[in-house]
């Protein structure tokens, strides 16, 4: 059986789509913080650590939350699920906040709770903690969304038995510009398709590209 995308999420342009279904829409977005908080509340997520996260982690965390919400928690063994994410600006959104805190020697207040988020892969760490994921995790950076790179990385993991399934996607935020697309890719998606309304897609570069265009 070929590798399949068995679930996906899209967050962008005020819309949140999960498996083809629009679940949230905000026509006028004031700030990312407001947008993500409204989404968190509507979806009745209860994870107090969410409020401590930086924007990149919030965006990735909610994507994974929506992606895995109907999953039987025991379906994946901890070491068999991988996470591969990518973006363009790494952790720059939070880097700027940390830099601001050390800009003036007269008001020098670097904070560990900000600094810890100045690494792009912390979002993966947050997702792994929440879902008990212990498989391979990688954060890649490219100027623009690079579906070929993601597809190759994840296919290689699944083909060589480094993982049974993988959460992969693009999680980008800088200021008020944000977009996140996440897909659950499985070696054999035939079981997953039995329990959802969503028809799995073949896991190809073209399919990933399509997910970025959801509107």
């Amino acid at each position, binding site marked *: 059986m070929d590798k399949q995308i068995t679930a996906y999420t899209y967050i962008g342009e005020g819309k949140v789509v999960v498996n083809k279904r629009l679940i949230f829409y905000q026509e006028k977005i004031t700030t990312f913080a407001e947008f993500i908080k409204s989404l968190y509340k509507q979806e009745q997520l209860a994870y107090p650590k969410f409020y401590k996260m930086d924007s990149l982690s919030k965006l990735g965390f909610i994507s994974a939350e929506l992606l895995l919400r109907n999953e039987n928690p025991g379906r994946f063994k901890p070491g068999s699920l991988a996470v591969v994410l990518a973006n363009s600006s790494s952790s720059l959104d939070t880097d700027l906040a940390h830099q601001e805190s050390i800009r003036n020697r007269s008001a020098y207040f*670097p904070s560990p709770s900000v600094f810890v988020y100045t690494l792009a892969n912390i979002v993966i760490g947050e997702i792994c903690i929440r879902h008990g994921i212990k498989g391979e995790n990688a954060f890649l950076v490219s100027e623009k969304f690079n579906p070929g790179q993601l597809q190759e990385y994840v296919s290689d993991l699944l083909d060589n038995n480094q993982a049974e399934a993988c959460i992969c996607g693009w999680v980008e935020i800088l200021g008020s510009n944000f977009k996140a697309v996440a897909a659950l890719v499985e070696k054999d998606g035939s079981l997953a398709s039995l329990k959802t309304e969503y028809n799995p897609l073949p896991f190809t570069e073209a399919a990933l590209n399509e997910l970025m265009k959801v509107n």
Partner: protein
Amino acid sequence: MKPTYVISENIVSSLGFTAAENTDGLIKGATGIRIHHETTLYPNPVALSLIDTHHLDQRFEVILNKFKKEHRAGSYTRLEKMLILSISDALQGIPVRVDDSKLILMLSTTKGNIDLLEDRYTAKFDHKRVYLWALAAVIREFFGLANTPYIISNACISGVMALIKASRLLRSAKYDYAIIAGGDIASEFVISGFQSFQALSSEPCKPFDLNRKGLSLGEGCGTIVLSVNPPDVSSCSILVAGGSVSNDANHISGPSRTGEELSMAIDTAIRESGIVNNDIDYISAHGTATPFNDEMEAKAISLSGMNEVPVNSFKGYWGHTLGASGIMESAALIGSMKMNCLFRSAGFETPGVIEPINVIKETIYKPVSTCLKTASGFGGCNAALVFQKI
């Protein structure tokens, strides 16, 4: 699957600008970590491993002339100079054409040109240069590489991960050559951050020692060139045999309490290499010298049944160089394999971890043929990589 051979390596650190200069420093056993009072880096004195700026600029001028570049040295950032020096040294004397379409540059860095966020640089460089892909584009342009560089930014395992991914790309015949380069600078950004964590030692760091008081930051670059073809002239061939990555799923800034997940990556990397844990005759550990990291690593080594295997950390020589560390330390490990020499773990005097492990106290010459490199980082990530001499 094709085997992947190490065909050259470079280290740029406070100890020197080539792999040989660095291994000379390791043999002498001297540390490059000093107490620096550089107010552009931190308001107070701090123990750091820094590359001498004057020396760096001198070496860079030579490279600029060699490559007949019209650009002036001033149009390159500190990290770009370090990376270009490291890569150009690694490319010397090997049969690799940089414009080969079957060659990929893997770039490993945690913070890239992060110093460009400082006010003193904002007028000098385009603000875009702080993006990791813009840094990669400068390196690509300098050497005239055919392909867009592959960028990995996964905290302190970035370097080991870049080596693992490069070997997979070569094994699956997507490329014939990979230049794996990693670099990070000592910046006010990073120093102030680690200080706010109270993670920095006031003296040169002491990995695995009873009196370790935290890490020492360093700056540096490392480059390793891998090929699907064995090296032309060499007394031995070194292969990248297998690698694995795992996550603790425990804490974003603290390591696993059990070391199970690093041990899982170690065991998987060894299994993938077609060997058994008993075959490993040397481990280059991450060894940051923070109380929890070293304890976790000792537990993982013990869980993998390797308490007797000689272990060292290179952090006592050139500090923690973040995204560069995995590549610099792998290059030093390759030096150990070539010279059949195990370097003492600088800063280690009295055993200071609960699980007994065999930390190298004195540099010794002995056959070294199958080695393990490990790394762990923020975000709960772990990586393990096996090198084999044939």
